[in-house]
């Protein structure tokens, strides 16, 4: 005998599947397929206007990596990352801990310290360009107080990269602080009290209790700091356009220049793919934290 239940089972199965369709189409069209195409395109010569792709094997990679401007961009990205990642993490953690101990001022201090993260990067880059402008910007007025002659901060290859890295730290420390702050809030009070009762205080408590407890948070903050640094674009494109003399050119500003200024999309894809190799390594880290959060 056929009863209605198999049929009902099926309709119950179909309704939820339909609910997945719009998002499924979106992710397929705008994430999955482009990601696969990015991989494929890096082995082809890609004409901007459409038309046939020509297979060039590893030619794009060889050409890109042999380009001194690209080598410079890779090195700059490393230097920029070194200048921003660790300071942002240390500052973010320190500020989160200090704010937590700030007593009544805590909500106000927290809000003010979150502000850098809320700012539009282009707007912030415009403001910092003005602060570091030559010769009359605030930075030069400030060093002038100490009798130092004006410095062309953004016009001198020696100072431009440290200055954009400073903006990076200003921004990223605010973000890592937020992450640490949220992480510290989930720490059970009992553990803190137990540590206090045991007489574990100060840096020892930080090292023995707090840091191990917020390890997933610390990993997440590190991942975000790395992603922010390696993919820096907005601030540099507005403040220096990669100059002077390529001294602030980074991987992503280079991808943009090669792809959309020189219209070498195969080359740009190849460089973006090299960036992906780094990001996948970071992504493995992130996946582990995400898996931890799913539980």
């Amino acid at each position, binding site marked *: 005998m056929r009863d209605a239940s198999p049929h009902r089972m099926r309709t119950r199965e179909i309704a939820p599947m339909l609910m997945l369709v719009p998002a499924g189409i979106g992710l397929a069209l705008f994430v999955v397929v482009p990601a696969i195409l990015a991989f494929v395109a890096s082995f082809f010569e890609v004409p901007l206007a459409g038309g046939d792709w020509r297979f060039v094997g590893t030619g794009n990679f060889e050409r890109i990596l042999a380009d001194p401007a690209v080598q410079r961009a890779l090195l700059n990205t490393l230097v920029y990352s070194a200048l921003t990642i660790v300071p942002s993490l240390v500052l973010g953690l320190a500020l989160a801990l200090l704010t937590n101990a700030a007593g009544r001022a805590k909500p106000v201090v927290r809000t003010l310290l979150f502000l850098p993260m809320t700012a539009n990067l282009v707007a912030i880059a415009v403001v910092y360009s003005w602060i570091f402008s030559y010769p009359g910007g605030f930075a030069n007025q400030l060093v002038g107080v100490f009798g130092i002659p004006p410095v062309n901060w953004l016009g001198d290859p020696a100072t431009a990269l440290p200055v954009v890295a400073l903006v990076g730290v200003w921004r990223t420390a605010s973000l890592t602080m937020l992450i640490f702050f949220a992480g510290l809030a989930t720490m059970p009070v009992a553990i803190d009290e137990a540590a206090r009762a045991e007489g574990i205080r100060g840096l020892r408590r930080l090292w023995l209790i707090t840091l191990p407890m917020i390890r997933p948070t610390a990993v997440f903050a590190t991942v975000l700091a790395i992603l922010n640094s390696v*993919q820096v674009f907005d601030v540099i494109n507005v403040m220096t356009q990669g100059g002077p003399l390529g001294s602030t050119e980074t991987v992503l500003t280079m991808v943009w220049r090669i792809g959309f200024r020189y219209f070498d999309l195969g080359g740009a894809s190849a460089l973006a793919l090299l960036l992906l190799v780094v990001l996948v390594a970071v992504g493995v880290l992130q996946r582990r934290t995400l898996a931890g959060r799913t539980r």
Partner: protein
Amino acid sequence: MRMLFRLATGTALALAVVISVFPFYWMLRTSVAPADETFARGISWVPTRFDFSGYERAWETGGLGSAVLVGVVQTLGILALQLLTCIPAAYVLAKVRTRTTALALAVVIGSLLVPSQVTLIPLFIGVNLAGLSNSLGGLILPFATSAFGIYLIRQQMVSIPDAVMEAARADGLGHTQRLVRIAVPMAAPGIAAFSVFSVFAHWNEYLWPLLIARSAELRTPPLALAAFQQADIGFDYPALTAGAVLVTAPMVVLFLIAQRRFVQGMSGTEIPG
């Protein structure tokens, strides 16, 4: 010793606050200072008189006026599409357990890990081929769904007790009604957090509009501001910083009124009070 420690940490925190806030202060100060005071020698903390003409120049000459309109349409258009696509998917991934949904969840998490820079070039080619470059559709459609949104909202819906869902099913509510009447209200904080995150991310997006919006009328606020700075207008810092205020202020206001959801959207976790 304790006193000294407190004094040291208090000073450090105060200094950090000053450094965090200073660029905002300097932006506001410059935007209302008369042009002749902009390059005055020595540090002038407060302008002697206020001059708001910089805002007029940013709005008219700098094109921020039309850009704000484009920005609002683009941001809200993306948000509407994302909510329409993400919420049903999040519900299914949270409350229907089949092999298909397990696979779909894996695809969502996988998509989360794909950085937007990697998909940038194929997306650009695709949008060009579809004839959508230099159009609002080109600005909005590629963001029609969000793996992060699905993930964040799903996390909230997972915590709805299965018993509640079962009871609703026993009452004869189908999936659509359970989604609308139970899952959406109960996941409201997560949906709000994602909405704040989405508005924030897309109002501020710079690289994608830079590729898509070639004509001036289609410029989004960050794009208009960057173009204004790179245009040959000399060094009209009052107008430039006024433009920066116009781009920044809506998001700072959003942050101030929805701070908890903002933090949740950024960190994926909630903070008490």
